[in-house]
């Protein structure tokens, strides 16, 4: 998966920006890994249950295990393997996703550039606040009610209506970086938005394992965030069915 992604980014000539190697990737077992575990666990459980099939249920079970580990800080795999997660090399996870939005490039760019808008379509974000022309403060929800994660980020590259890149500040809870490109689609098809999101999971075999399992989910998360962005811009609303009637008594949709 990792080499595949590297090849893709070479092909697309993307991702020059990587997260710093200072925060989540360097901390020993503890807060960060617990948060990552909980986050990944909740994501696995969420998407697993949403999928409603055997693969989905396997996902949900794996998610439950990670969630347990995140919540308790106890990892049986870690104990059996007799390792801690301190000294292996760090991994870089990178996700590239594109979508085409039938709106002019300037409009699409401006909506994203107003970073306060991001939580409107990025489901895991609770709040983004612009602190200065380049600096912003991010608050993400950890699904499953485990809490929130916060970090500061800087816009490190900006070309109006073309490119936006940011990076978390050194020593963040989750080392992460992102790059979004805005390009004209052929003919009158609107704007291609390409997002390249990267983050460093905690070091070590367990961190790596968790990252491997979580990677498809993060891909899906990026995909669905982008999709909500498109839907918001193209139609002004995000389609939902939560809250509509059904014959189910437990969940009302």
């Amino acid at each position: 998966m990792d080499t595949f992604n590297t090849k893709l980014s070479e092909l697309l000539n993307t991702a020059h920006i990587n997260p710093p190697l200072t925060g989540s990737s360097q901390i020993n077992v503890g807060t960060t890994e617990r948060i990552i575990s909980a986050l990944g666990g909740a994501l696995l459980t969420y998407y697993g249950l949403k999928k409603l099939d055997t693969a989905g249920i396997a996902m949900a079970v794996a998610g439950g295990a990670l969630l347990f580990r995140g919540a308790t800080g106890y990892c049986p795999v870690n104990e059996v393997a007799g390792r801690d997660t301190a000294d292996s090399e760090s991994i870089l996870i990178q996700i590239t996703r594109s979508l085409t939005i039938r709106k002019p490039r300037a409009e699409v760019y401006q909506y994203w550039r107003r970073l306060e808008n991001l939580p409107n379509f990025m489901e895991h974000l609770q709040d983004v606040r612009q602190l200065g022309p380049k600096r912003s403060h991010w608050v993400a929800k950890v699904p499953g009610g485990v809490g929130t994660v916060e970090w500061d980020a800087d816009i490190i590259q900006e070309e109006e209506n073309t490119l936006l890149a940011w990076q978390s500040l050194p020593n963040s809870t989750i080392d992460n970086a992102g790059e979004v490109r805005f390009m004209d689609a052929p003919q009158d098809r609107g704007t291609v938005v390409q997002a390249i999101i990267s983050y460093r999971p905690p070091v070590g075999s367990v961190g790596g394992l968790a990252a491997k399992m979580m990677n498809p989910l993060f891909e899906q998360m990026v995909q669905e965030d982008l999709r909500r962005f498109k839907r918001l811009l193209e139609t002004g609303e995000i389609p939902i069915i939560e809250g509509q009637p059904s014959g189910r008594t437990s969940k009302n949709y």
Partner: protein
Amino acid sequence: MKALCWNGINKLNVERVPDPSILNPGDAIVRVTMSSVCGSDLHLLDGYVPAMREGDIIGHEFMGEVVEVGPEVTKLKKGDRVVVGSVLGCGGCEFCQTDQWSLCDNSNTHPEILEKAYGYAGAGIFGYSHAFGGYAGSHAEYIRVPYADTGSFKVPEGIKDESAVFTSDAFPTGYMAADMCGIEPGDTVVVWGAGGVGQMAMQSAWLLGAGRVIAIDRFPERLAMAKLYAKAEVLNYEEVDILEALREMTGGRGPDRCIDAVGMEAHTTGVEQYYDRAKQAVRLQTDRPAVLRQAIMACRKGGTISIVGVYGGLLDKFPMGAAMNKALTFRMGQMFAQKYIPKLLDIVADGQVDPAYLLTHKWSLDQGPEGYKMFKEKTDNCMRVVFAP
């Protein structure tokens, strides 16, 4: 309110559920006055459409009265009498803007389900499983209609409910089937399946310039309707060899345009039926393509196969060699309701076609389960049961 819920394969129940409410600014709430069964629902009942959940309200061909509109709705108001297309289109994406509404990028709430199976996902459809958005269907007293401005059409005064309701689904589907044929003057058009969709395809073939229309089915009463209302010549596939009959009827050339208005649960006679059913049962193939196979063989060289009968997954023994070497054109798809409904309302208002004859039974919603049983088994000369809650 009352609603007809899917509770498992061939398990339908009328239940009390909460009333719908406006959830998005572009929504409207419609009081359903008529809601029809459709052949597509049989695929849900028989379990061929995955991602149904117990308690889902089914039904997608309907009309009614607007009782509430969201703040962004501009074209509708309380009291409007409307027919609503079965397929949801956002109006803003590339596909909606180019009139390919069932390919809408935005109306499916769970596109990831179909993306895994198909690469890219189509639009949401009312009452048609979570793979198609999980929207509550129309077999209920009220229904929430998202993107109300794009999908609802005011019914002109002169058109009665019994005619208007079928411009929601059966008529646009049949019309699109004929439209996709690219009929040239004098062409012979054959329609497999004399259900509601097939009947409308026959009527539309005439409108689009066919010289001859031939209907194929096995139910005498349906063939009789095709003859009487759609002026079709009819063939009963249980009585004649279809390939031979079509060849002889067309001077040895074969029909120019072939419409599949049957889909994945085609019925067959002979060995083929056991073969296909066995494979379908163990999921080696998901769909039974008997009609498609026959249409490909029957079609003249360089002709067109137009498919509106629904397929869901994989086919076995698909005569690709015949299709390729005869240079056939294939057109297919879930129908583009919003593209056709205004035109069809005009056609009905003009009296060129009156689809009201499809309505053979008008029942109360309480009789939903029996209605579907009758429609499925095609008893009591049933063409379409319409529920008037």
